[in-house]
């Protein structure tokens, strides 16, 4: 019952966040009514893009294959104009990566299944006085033969996961200063002041927590699983359970506390900035164009241009995030499914310890997947909040 409630809440939260994203994506189109206004806005956007320091982002984007065909300024301007994204090609590319991964990994798992089944058959056929000692020797050989490809695959998974998290961290450290700059330039000074420490904390501390604690603890859990199945005398099940619990608490507490707190603060700040701006506009009714230090309610091209560039940069950041996230996730999912499939195949005929080991390794790898997805989710949340706050300003 508890799990159902948690699942429903998670789905509702995701729908709310996606609704923010799609509503803000729709605002990347220019809203000026006349051609003259649109041209003026476009010119302002081009000037702002020239003024904005995009060098670090340009260098990073050049290193990504899928984004190196255009400059960052050109790409941002295209998103603002509302040029459509080529969804069919994007999704077909994703499907190609999925099948290629499965094809590459399949021989290793077939080898594991074959060795395990063979050893299972030989053990079944054992006869004579040396049956007991030969059984342990056969198990050792089968286990070692299965372990080598599994460890190679697991190492590849961890490397891919760590590189993905590291790539996301690099993106955050490039993109967040730009987004906060554009947020402050578009009138969201309070929002920028609130988001600044939160995104700094997330991009440095939380991501380091994932790569320095969660991933290594997952390796330890897998090592306990290897040792526990190799030797019946060594029992590390409870230690493994303890480290699993630590991982769950780290991920759970981080995503709920940071996510909820930052969402609440960000939305409140955006409302504050928006109300202040509307109060200034309302004062125009008395013939006063400026109230205090705030600027008039007339259409400010710099503010509007900054807001549009911020939204399109947010969209581009999400595409960049997906580009570094997709392959590792596909690899982790493929390995998880293949491990479970191999465990299922070897269970009827092979040694129970090997199939249990394969099944446990598949479950333990989920912490790796969770770490990557958790980093991506919080990154996505930060972008959506920063982009979505501009809705409250106008």
């Amino acid at each position, binding site marked *: 019952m508890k799990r159902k409630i948690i699942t429903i809440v998670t789905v509702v939260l995701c729908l709310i966040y996606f609704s923010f994203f799609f509503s803000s994506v729709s605002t990347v189109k220019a809203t000026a009514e006349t051609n003259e206004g649109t041209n003026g806005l476009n010119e302002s956007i081009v000037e*702002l893009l020239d*003024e*904005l*320091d995009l060098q670090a982002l340009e260098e990073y984007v050049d290193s990504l294959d899928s984004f190196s065909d255009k400059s960052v300024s050109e790409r941002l301007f295209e998103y603002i104009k509302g040029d459509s994204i080529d969804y069919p090609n994007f999704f077909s590319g994703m499907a190609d990566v999925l099948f290629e991964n499965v094809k590459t990994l399949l021989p290793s798992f077939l080898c594991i299944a074959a060795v395990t089944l063979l050893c299972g058959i030989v053990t079944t056929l054992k006869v004579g006085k040396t049956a007991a000692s030969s059984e342990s020797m056969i198990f*050792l050989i089968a286990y070692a033969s299965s372990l080598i490809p599994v460890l190679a695959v697991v190492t590849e998974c961890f490397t891919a996961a760590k590189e993905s998290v590291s790539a996301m961290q690099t993106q955050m450290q490039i993109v*967040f*200063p*730009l987004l*906060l*700059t554009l947020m*402050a*330039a578009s009138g969201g*000074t*309070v929002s*920028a*002041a*609130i988001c*600044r420490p939160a*995104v*700094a*904390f997330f991009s*440095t*501390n939380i991501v380091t*927590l994932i790569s*320095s*604690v969660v991933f*290594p*603890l997952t390796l*330890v859990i897998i*090592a*306990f699983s*290897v*040792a*526990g199945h*190799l*030797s019946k*005398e*060594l029992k590390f099940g409870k*230690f493994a359970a303890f480290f699993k619990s630590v991982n769950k608490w780290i991920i759970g507490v981080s995503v709920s506390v940071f996510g909820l707190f930052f969402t*609440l*603060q960000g939305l*409140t*700040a955006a409302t*504050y900035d928006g109300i202040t701006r509307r109060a200034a506009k309302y004062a125009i009714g008395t*013939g*006063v*164009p*400026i*109230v*205090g*230090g*705030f*600027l*008039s309610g*007339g259409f*400010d*091209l*710099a*503010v509007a241009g*900054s807001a549009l560039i911020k939204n399109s940069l947010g969209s581009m950041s999400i595409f960049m995030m997906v580009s570094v996230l997709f392959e590792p996730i596909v690899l982790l999912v493929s390995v998880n499914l293949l491990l479970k499939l191999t465990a299922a195949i070897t269970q009827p005929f092979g040694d129970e310890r090997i199939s249990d080991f394969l099944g446990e390794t598949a479950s333990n790898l989920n912490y790796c997947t969770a770490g990557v997805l958790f980093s991506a989710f919080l990154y996505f949340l930060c972008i959506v909040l920063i982009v979505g706050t501009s809705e409250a300003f106008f």
Partner: protein
Amino acid sequence: MSGYILSVIGVVLIAAILTAILPEGKTNGVIKSVMKVVCVFTIVSPVFEYLGGAENINSEGIFEKSVINEDVSFIDYCSKISVENVAKELEASLETEFSVQVSVTLEWRYKQETTDILVGSYENDKIEIVKATVALEVEPDAETKEKIIGFLKETGIGEVEIV
């Protein structure tokens, strides 16, 4: 942290291999017991370090403070454009209100404000227009000058100068 992880993995795997390949014998049980004790002590070693007064558990920089620096020159550029827009609007307002041809130049600065939101106080910079210099094509009479100065001061500008 990485040192601890490597030591745990190494000790556990070596213990597992040893217990698996050791031949049967009298010392078998003793060796296995010793390996188990070594494994347990290696895994719980951080607890002993903490109790022993280890000062720094932040070996991986998990609690390192970091700062995000915005592009100040871009914000200044946008602020300058916004202030220029305001100057143009002021010129239009003055021309409509007083039927005079004017050119308005605004001096501005950033004013730091503290905003309390939920559980935190946050400092942010707002644009503050400090002085407005109004250049008139035709010298108006004193009454009109006073009205112009009064009009501009009502908008919140600190100092107004007519040239």
